[in-house]
């Protein structure tokens, strides 16, 4: 396991698997979009608008899943202090923000024709907005603290504090009376969706998850290269200092 978590081995692994992962992502999203627009039926109440569900729900699932990835990475940073853990956390935060933004915007575009409003301050919508703000806070924290190790630890602590929001998002529709509908796929008693709608949704969710894996691997690779560049710049500056020192002594 440690071998796979070695940054150099990780770079080689990413180079080997990324083309295959991208091919699987494009294929799955292609099939998912085909099913979304050509095989999935319109809803008897919502009509064609239900097609927004096929991007809104995967984005919502991913927004929470990415946060759980970041939570595991935060534990890796604080407990094992592994270099890949904070790289993973740093790479995941902008993707989490991106998918949460998609969830909020598509939800709003779905809500307007169905509920008659773009936004309500109900528990589900507000807790997802809080998640988006946590992602933005984490990105800001990474960019504010210059010392990488300190930034990694501060972000890991904030991530662990923010994880309390995930069960609130998940169960908000059960705990409070909300305008947002309750869970219809991941619920006790099985999915409430008809298979003709469930399958396109699951294929789109798989495609979106594969897309996240591709983007996350690319992001972690960038963070590893950034650390390598920082180290090389530091070594080059140190070597330049050694070259200048004898000249200074000779001058004195």
């Amino acid at each position: 396991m440690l071998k796979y978590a070695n940054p150099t081995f990780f770079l080689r692994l990413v180079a080997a698997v990324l083309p295959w992962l991208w091919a699987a992502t494009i294929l799955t999203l292609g099939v998912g979009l085909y099913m979304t627009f050509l095989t999935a039926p319109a809803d008897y109440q919502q009509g064609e608008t239900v097609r927004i569900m096929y991007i809104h729900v995967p984005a919502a699932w991913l927004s929470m899943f990415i946060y759980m990835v970041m939570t595991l990475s935060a534990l890796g940073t604080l407990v094992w202090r592994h270099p890949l853990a904070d790289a993973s956390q740093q790479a995941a935060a902008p993707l989490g923000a991106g998918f949460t933004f998609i969830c909020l915007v598509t939800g709003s575009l779905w809500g307007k024709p169905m509920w008659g409003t773009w936004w309500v301050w109900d528990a589900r919508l507000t807790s997802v907005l809080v998640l988006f703000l946590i992602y933005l806070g984490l990105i800001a924290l990474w960019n504010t603290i210059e010392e990488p190790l300190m930034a990694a630890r501060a972000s890991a602590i904030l991530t662990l504090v923010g994880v309390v929001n995930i069960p609130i998002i998940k169960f908000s529709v059960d705990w409070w009376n909300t305008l947002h509908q309750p869970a219809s796929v991941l619920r006790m008693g099985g999915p409430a969706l008809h298979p003709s709608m469930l399958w396109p949704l699951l294929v789109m969710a798989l495609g979106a998850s594969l897309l996240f894996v591709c983007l996350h691997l690319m992001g972690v690779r960038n963070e590893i290269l950034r650390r390598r560049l920082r180290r090389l710049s530091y070594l080059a500056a140190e070597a330049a200092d050694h070259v200048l020192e004898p000249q200074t002594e000779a001058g004195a």
Partner: protein
Amino acid sequence: MSDHGDFIIAAFAITAAVVALMLGAIVRDHRALKRALAKFPPRGEGDGR
């Protein structure tokens, strides 16, 4: 796609734009890092930090 077609198109278009933005940012960052690393003489494969 007669009813609320503009909402559906907007939702898919915004999703595509956000994904393209995320991918573009990562690719641009990768190219910049590769260019910066190429300025240093080649070394043995070191650690990630």
